[in-house]
């Protein structure tokens, strides 16, 4: 029973997270060094012993993790930190006490603020002990030894005394577990010292200046491709200029200003297609690829996947758009690739006839005809010296439609808090000759909702919750009490989301589960 304990712990205001994307201070050359900043602002409470600072030097975390800690030092412990000192400390600590790329890999979805992401599976004990208030990614994005994990457990209960009384805590000896077996377990799962970090922190990392080929996909929306020019900003950061095309037509320009923390954590602020954007990208260990997610700062749930590869990289196919074609159909196709020769040859495999219509720096456009009797299945794509498997398929008919995410949460909006929308995407698949399901990529669909169960039907959730737009985005209704509902309820809803994909005369349906719930007052950089 989770008796609704009124929330007695206070949480962050929502503004924090965006600090990271700030521009570096101009004239960074005469800015005080990292150790000097920590000595100045932290050593009053965190005593220094031979260059290491109590507590601070015992922890490694992501840039967002350091921002959250500094926010608490300010909000709870009264530390006054000017903005440039703040940025300098985050940068210094993320660089010298960060996570190696392999250490942050599992939790990246949280840094990227992916909506409706599945949390890490660290076993049922940690899920119940830690995973009910925040993601386990928040835990997995830190490194400490057992003694400091123990101190952090003391912080949790000291700061949030209601913790032990809440559901999933009061059914077990929470404090005993948290102070005996857990610190050791966390210390071995996520220890302060690691070979990966030693190697990463001592290695040299490639500069990112130069030309890059970019592909981006916005779920339910558009596919983008084009180029990025990356330059230094003269202060240890980067600027990027984007020239992209939208497969639905038109061009998308953009630019961004980024700081790269820990040698690979790209945090950019800019705009894309006239809309403000934030970038949470990771540079691959060899410095050849930048990937991650961009999003709208006011609607973090809106954004897309991003991949950039150096334009002079070895020939490779980055995207085939669209990802599938139906037998007997004809139409245009775009191949995004690096290392394109002057007059490239394009092949889409058996049953296709291809005529190249134009060639750009990193993309080839062609008119394709698919034979009526072309066999269903995946096709290898070859362009110039690059080839790729699993990026293109032919189908005779759509056999299955999946809606992603399979479970989503949307939140009503109102007052100062914008609604949190939920973006769905329909993807189709077909069986190949061997009976194997082959993915065909995203499809447009007719979207609708219906009550998830009898109770949702009784309370008219479909009417009150909001509405789904033609592109598969669910817009929740306004917050506040609706006097027409039972107990003057909020416009919460429990819905099934249906996508009908048309394949000639037949329609294939897929569904997902959507909960529309109340506003969340707090958004933290790592959920």
């Amino acid at each position, binding site marked *: 029973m*989770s008796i609704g304990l*009124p929330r007695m712990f206070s949480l962050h205001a929502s503004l924090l997270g965006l600090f990271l994307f700030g521009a570096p201070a101009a004239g960074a050359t005469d800015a005080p060094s990292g150790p000097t900043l920590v000595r100045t602002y932290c050593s009053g*409470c965190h005593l220094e012993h031979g260059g290491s600072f109590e507590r601070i030097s015992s922890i490694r975390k992501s840039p967002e993790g350091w921002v959250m800690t500094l926010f608490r030092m300010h909000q709870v412990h009264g530390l006054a930190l000017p903005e440039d000192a703040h940025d300098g400390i985050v940068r210094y600590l993320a660089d010298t006490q960060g996570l190696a790329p392999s250490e942050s890999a599992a939790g990246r979805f949280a840094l990227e603020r992916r909506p409706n992401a599945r949390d890490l599976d660290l076993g049922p004990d940690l899920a119940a002990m830690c995973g009910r208030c925040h993601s386990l990614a928040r835990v997995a994005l830190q490194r400490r030894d057992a003694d400091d994990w123990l101190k952090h457990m003391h*912080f949790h209960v000291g700061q949030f*005394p209601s913790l032990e009384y809440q559901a999933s805590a*009061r059914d077990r000896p*929470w404090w005993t577990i948290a102070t005996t077996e857990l610190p050791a377990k966390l210390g071995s799962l996520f220890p302060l010292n690691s070979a990966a970090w030693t190697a990463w922190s001592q290695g040299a990392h490639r500069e990112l200046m130069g030309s890059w080929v970019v592909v981006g996909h916005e779920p339910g929306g558009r596919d983008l491709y084009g180029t990025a020019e990356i330059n230094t900003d003269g202060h240890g950061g980067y600027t990027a200029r984007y020239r992209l095309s939208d497969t639905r037509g038109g061009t998308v320009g953009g630019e961004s200003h980024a700081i790269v923390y820990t040698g690979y954590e790209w945090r950019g602020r800019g705009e894309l297609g006239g809309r403000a954007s934030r970038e949470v990208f990771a540079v691959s260990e060899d410095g050849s690829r930048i990937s991650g997610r961009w999003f709208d700062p006011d609607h973090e749930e809106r954004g897309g996947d991003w991949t950039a590869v150096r334009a002079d990289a070895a020939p490779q196919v980055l995207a085939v758009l669209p990802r599938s074609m139906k037998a007997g159909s004809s139409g245009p196709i775009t191949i995004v690739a690096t290392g394109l020769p002057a007059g490239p040859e394009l092949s889409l495999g058996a049953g296709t006839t291809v005529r190249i219509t134009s060639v750009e720096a990193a993309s080839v456009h062609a008119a394709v005809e698919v034979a009526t009797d072309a066999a269903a299945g995946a096709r290898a794509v070859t362009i110039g010296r690059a080839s790729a498997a699993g990026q293109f398929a032919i189908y005779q008919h759509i056999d299955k439609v999946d809606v992603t995410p399979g479970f989503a949460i949307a939140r009503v909006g109102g007052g100062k808090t914008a609604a949190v929308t939920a973006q769905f995407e329909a993807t189709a698949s077909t069986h190949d000759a061997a009976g194997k399901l082959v993915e065909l990529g995203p499809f447009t669909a007719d979207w609708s909702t219906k009550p998830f169960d009898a109770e949702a039907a009784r309370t008219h959730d479909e009417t009150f919750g909001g509405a789904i737009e033609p592109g598969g985005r669910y817009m929740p209704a306004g917050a506040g009490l609706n006097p027409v509902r039972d107990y*003057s309820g909020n416009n919460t809803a429990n819905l099934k989301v249906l996508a009908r994909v048309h394949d000639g005369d037949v329609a294939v349906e897929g569904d997902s589960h959507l909960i529309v719930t*109340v506003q969340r007052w707090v958004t933290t950089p790592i959920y």
Partner: protein
Amino acid sequence: MRMTTRGLLAVALVAVTTAFAIAPPARAGDLLLTAAKPDRLYVIDTATRSVRSEFRIPNAGAHITTIVPSPDGKVAYVLVNRMESISGINLKTGREVFRADLSVPGERVKDFCAFTITPDGKELIVYELPTKLLPNEYRVEEPRFAVFRTNAGLKAKSIRAYSAPRRLHLMLMRPSGKSFYAIGVDLYEYDVASGKLLNTRGIQKWDLVAHSQPDLLAFWPVTEPTGVFTSPVISDATAGGITAMKTGLMSLDVVSGALDFADFEDTSALIFSTVLAPDRKFAYGVYSTLTKIDIEHHSLAQRVPLDHTFYSVNIATDGHEIYMGGAMCDVAFYDPQTLQKRANLKLPGCGDQSLASLRVIPAR
């Protein structure tokens, strides 16, 4: 056995105004105590269903929870200041006559709703959860019971302390004054003078045949008018291969020490708190419904929906009326027979009562 209340909690955050439909009966009534944010203590005359006094509690920190009246009904001890202070308010004058600020520099102390008073009114026993605030570290210390003299004035310091288990949320004095009950993971009984643990009886360790570990969370130390404390308990019960979530009633007679547990329904509504009627035939529970529980037959007698949620419930000393408070600023008066609303009193200023206790001081 987890029940989600998100939907329920999402609803109803604003009071629904109800006109005084029925004229109050003219009889000498009990006094009702409740409190609301940021710092108000209300004395309500149940005969006229009106606020007799509205007192301001100094330095309440915009947070008021447990109310424990002195046995003579003259002073109300109120847990305020984010559970870090107990303020004693004289109910005639409104003056603060007692104050214990539990935290000291370097040590933050919270009382998670649990404290009680000896029958002679001379000592308060307070559950303390201390945390040492070191320069760059918090250190959670072992909980303790701290004893304060009620005549210690406004700078009261504890005169003795003894160790206590973690996770308590309620304390109830026994009328003998020799021992008190503490409710948390289990039901403990302690000796007042020595602080010795006299016995432990199950809550989580209840050995209920074919039941899962029960869940109980109660912040409302109500034993009036019967001397019996009751609280809803949830567990999963398995019968004939089928497992169902059950709501039961835990009842503890602080006079005799009798402890009882009985399921009365397949859980179909959440109940925050209950009170036993003076005839001991029915108990009443509230949250988003008002529930009448048949004690003899262990069954659900009646249930009506409420305008919004209420956290705390109490009953007239003679049983003629049910009182509801907690959450928002309504105090509602209901008919125990029909479960119909007789009247609704909106507290002046309309502060949120939240987890404040709703206590009855019998007419004298």
